[in-house]
């Protein structure tokens, strides 16, 4: 039996759902509401001491870290293969998944907060803002307030936006050469990248590719028409969140455009 501990807003959990869907595997959903803090429940901490989603449990065997889960499912259920056959293409695939873990993942949280999620804090009014800022050690409070107020123009957020833009540029270069990120077929590179591109799409920032990256645009259209895109990704977005992210994203777009130009 395959059990997946996951949540609808987590990019990493989305990766695990996509690969399970691409393999056509049945799995039991164990929903961990990370917005309510369920990842800190003692039973979950036993499975995942870092209190993050996803966690995959396969016949009692626990697998953590979405990138490792991807490789695991492909090893355990080889058909259809989601790793390229050639050793060189596997290198390309693993460089992509490593860059996700080390570059894009940290950038995603910062960008999402700067463009959209900080508004949820602001909407709660001055007293709540004050409490939120003072919830960290005194030395960090000025930075926390600055991030809350400056949005995408905060230096860290601007830097994260540029990380994203560089990554998209590198995708465009690769997709000009090969139809998929690691060669001639859909691979774990796609599985990993899709949730991060979808995040930008939900934030109404698709101009980052539609305006200047034709190969990436065409690739994204192909990805979105795969049946698994709906069943593994869109189905799990919490109601109302997409509209909210789109609204704030549209407001931020002119600033984002100025940052990456």
């Amino acid at each position, binding site marked *: 039996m395959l059990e997946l501990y996951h949540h609808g807003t987590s990019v990493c959990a989305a990766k695990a759902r996509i690969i399970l869907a691409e393999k056509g595997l049945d799995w039991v959903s164990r929903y961990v509401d990370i917005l309510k803090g369920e990842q800190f429940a003692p039973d979950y901490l036993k499975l995942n001491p870092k209190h993050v989603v996803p966690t995959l449990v*396969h016949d009692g*065997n626990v*697998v*953590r*870290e979405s*990138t*490792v*889960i991807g*490789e*695991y499912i492909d*090893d*355990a259920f080889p058909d259809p293969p989601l790793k390229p056959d050639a*050793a*060189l293409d*596997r*290198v390309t695939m*693993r*460089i992509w998944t*490593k860059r996700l*873990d*080390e570059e894009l993942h940290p950038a995603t949280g910062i960008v999402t907060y700067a463009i959209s999620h900080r508004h949820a804090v602001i909407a709660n009014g001055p007293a709540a803002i004050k409490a939120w800022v003072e919830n960290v050690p005194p030395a960090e409070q000025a930075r926390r307030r600055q991030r809350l107020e400056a949005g995408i123009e905060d230096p860290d957020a601007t830097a994260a936006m540029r990380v994203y833009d560089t990554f998209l540029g590198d995708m465009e270069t690769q997709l000009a050469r090969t139809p998929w990120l690691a060669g001639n077929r859909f691979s774990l590179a796609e599985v990993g990248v899709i949730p991060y591109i979808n995040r930008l799409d939900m934030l109404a920032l698709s101009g980052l590719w539609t305006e200047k990256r034709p190969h990436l645009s065409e690739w994204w259209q192909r990805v979105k028409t795969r049946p698994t895109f709906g069943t593994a990704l869109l189905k799990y977005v919490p109601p109302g969140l997409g509209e909210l992210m789109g609204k704030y994203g549209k407001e931020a777009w002119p600033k984002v455009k100025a940052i990456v130009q």
Partner: protein
Amino acid sequence: MLVLYHNDMSVCAQKVRLCLAEKGLAYEARHMNLRAGDQQQPDYLKLNPKGVVPTLVDDDIVVTESVVINEYIDDAFPRHPLKPNDPAGRAKMRWWTKQIDDSIFAATGTVSMSIAFHHQYTPEVLAELVRQRGEAYRRRFNLLQQGVNNPNFPDAIKRLYKMVVDMNAALEHGPWLCGEMLTLADIAFAPYLTRLDHLKFLGFLDKNARTAHWYERMRNRASYRTALAAQFNPKYLPLMDEKGREAWPRVKEFVGLA
């Protein structure tokens, strides 16, 4: 033909040399002097845009990132496999190698620089690095110069102690990190234990006997002797020894061994 761009004391390069030695593969070694900035030369940046070692070149295939290089070596040269046969074993192996990329590599950098390596940077080298990487590098370097008083030092050294403890727990199930078979996980961790050894922090092993025995087994392998021990840089060792011994009383306190 295989060509490896590497450095004698770089943990990432050591990982790949050890893998090549376990595979019994011949290669041409090109040593890079990192303190002289060899890795920033334009020809090397074409191979490795981040300007780091190692880089493996296999005819026209260029592979960067040590964890990816070692997976490549095992994919491209399947003789003497270094991955477990079963998916669960492979997942375990990759969980271990990922710990290094996520936090152990950075912690090792902070610890090694704070204690020993910052002494090797001349004012000229520092000025050049600041020119290349911006003023933020000077601020970071100023912290590293504070040694064990670097505010980032306690978390980094605790991470390395946790590594030793986690390994000890895993080694309950067999002689190697993934059980009965030596894998890319063991290869990846050998340089990190070696670094603790060079800094004279092997007191970390006192309560972690299984990790101690693992390290002993590792050091007795022919691959370790040729790929690591025979290439230790004699200019680095006395500095690490001296500065590490000085730091040890504070290190012990940070990790709760005092």
